[in-house]
């Protein structure tokens, strides 16, 4: 009975009620959307590297090592000498080791020197291997394999020549040694997409005619001569290491961290990722805070509409009272109306969210490499929705109590 009354009353004021519901729906959609982006970003982030037991580089911080070796953000403090690299590679615990040599660029993309083992060993999204979309891994000294974003942005195809620039933001290019694209990788949603990969020897090769960062004028070693040269690197930037047995990870980590000959650092990628996320996580808390505020604003807006409607509904309330409705019924009616509005708003917000996700998912994936899964609402999200409805019931108590008191007074007044 009271439910029908509440529903009818809402229908009678369809426009104002509709606007209030829309505000609640949008705020709920925003809140849940932020939640989805947050969890999606966290998962994508954690999925950047898997299958690697340790990342080894010069001693700095674990977050910094992770940033430059995996995310290609920032630079190494120092390099890892080839002798130390060989020492680590020779240890009995080490199953495989993949060197990474950074420092050159191609247009806006970083060039990474590595071995072909990288393509077998680098894993992402819980154990997925990187696959070639086109072509093959490098087989010649001047072959490169490029990530999906590099190919898409610069419009490259297999067989195209490319020139690698010295340093990261420099205009001096290694023009004498143009590379040929031998393969293009499938999109992974990891920094590999934005990387140009060459062999470790190629990094040495392009620096043959360079002394202390500048090109020796008039000197240009032909590619054939370079091929004959010993292209043993002096140092690499970092190395990815896999151990034979998981139980040996910590022993190897400690041995590398206490390596006397060179200050080195070995980190577990998962641990470093988590540390990094703790830093990024502050922004995450801020985002939740802001979207929470939006929900609160919408609820206060609803309270305001109920308040302003009280005046125009004075007559209605008086009639209810005259018909024998207790003041409690008036109170219940208003709270029920508010809860109904919030419930409809919450459901509508959920609809907005899923429609929005369906539209945004492919766009966000291609633009940011961020995969937002479309799943059923989690328990946490259902809790949020219920909390919104409960909060609206509590908020509506303020105007409802006023109506409760007014209906008593109005009922006793001779004239309204």
């Amino acid at each position, binding site marked *: 009975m009271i439910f029908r009354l509440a529903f009818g009353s809402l229908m009678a004021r369809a426009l104002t009620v509709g606007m209030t519901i829309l505000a609640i729906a949008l705020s709920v959609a925003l809140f849940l959307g932020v939640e989805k982006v947050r969890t999606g970003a966290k998962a994508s982030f954690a999925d950047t590297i898997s299958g690697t037991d340790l990342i080894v580089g010069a001693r700095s911080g674990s977050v910094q090592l992770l940033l430059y070796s995996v995310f290609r953000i920032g630079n190494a403090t120092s390099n890892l000498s080839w002798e130390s690299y060989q020492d680590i590679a020779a240890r009995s615990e080490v199953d495989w080791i993949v060197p990474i040599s950074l420092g050159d660029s191609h247009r806006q993309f970083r060039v990474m020197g590595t071995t072909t083992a990288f393509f077998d060993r680098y894993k992402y999204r819980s154990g997925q291997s990187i696959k070639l979309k086109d072509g093959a891994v490098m087989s010649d000294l001047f072959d490169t394999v490029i990530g999906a974003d590099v190919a898409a942005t610069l419009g490259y195809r297999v067989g195209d020549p490319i020139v690698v620039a010295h340093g990261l933001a420099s205009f001096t290019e290694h023009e004498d040694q143009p590379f040929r694209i031998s393969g293009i990788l499938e999109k992974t949603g990891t920094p590999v997409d934005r990387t140009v990969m060459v062999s470790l020897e190629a990094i040495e090769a392009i620096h043959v005619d360079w002394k202390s960062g500048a090109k020796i004028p008039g000197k240009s070693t032909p590619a054939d001569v370079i091929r004959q040269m010993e292209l043993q690197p002096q140092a690499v930037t970092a190395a990815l290491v896999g151990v034979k047995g998981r139980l040996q990870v910590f022993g190897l980590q400690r041995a590398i961290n206490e390596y006397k000959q060179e200050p080195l650092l070995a980190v577990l990628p998962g*641990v470093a990722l988590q540390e990094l996320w703790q830093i990024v996580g502050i922004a995450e808390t801020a985002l939740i805070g802001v979207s929470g505020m939006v929900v609160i604003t919408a609820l206060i807006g609803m309270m305001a509409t109920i308040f302003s409607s009280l005046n125009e509904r004075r007559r209605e309330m008086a009639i209810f009272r005259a018909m024998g409705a207790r003041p409690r019924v008036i109170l219940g009616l208003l709270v029920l109306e508010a809860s109904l509005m919030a419930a409809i708003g919450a459901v509508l917000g959920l609809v907005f969210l899923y429609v929005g996700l369906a539209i945004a998912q492919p766009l966000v994936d291609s633009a940011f490499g961020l995969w937002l899964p479309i799943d059923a609402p989690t328990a946490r999200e259902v809790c949020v929705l219920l909390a919104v409805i409960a909060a609206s019931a509590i908020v509506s108590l303020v105007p409802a109590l006023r109506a409760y008191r007014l209906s008593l007074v109005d009922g006793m007044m001779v004239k309204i």
Partner: protein
Amino acid sequence: MKTLLFLALAVSPAVAEETRQVDAHEHGVGQLDIAFDDKQIAIELHAPGADIVGFEYAAESSEDRAAVDAAVAKLAVPLDLFVLPAVAKCSVVQASAALESEDAHEEDHSNHDKEHKDEHADHADHEKHEDESGHTEFHAEYLLTCAEPAAVSEIKFAYFDVFPNALELEVQVVSNTGANAFEVERDNPMLDLRGMF
């Protein structure tokens, strides 16, 4: 302690290319590494001497020696320190614990130790490697085997009850789902591992 440490470094051997590095050492904070592999669990603990016995000078008096021996004996019983759920049916395969000084690997300490004022008389029977000029660390390694390793959903750290000076353990865990880091503090001596299987 700092000046002594400096002294130790300053009088260190005359080899010019010798690398000098001193590891970070924070009293109250130990490291615990846990690796899960199939039915085996390897645990490694590194804790400052201050956490375990309350001092880091060389144990000279019989009391101090007894304290060190008692601590090593306690550290050799991992399941009393790190309580695993009974349903996991874990048993200890191997456990070892020892006290080591930070510069335990260097041989030339006896030379400059003599410069310190009072303790040199006892150096002859200095069987442990501790050195009053450096920090000491307890190191323990355990290998456990569990019938139901997936049932290790949490670890209760009785460690903090056994060693009242310990405040925190920095925990690294690797399992087949990857690696993760946790901090376990005296106030909440529990490690939730449900996400690791």
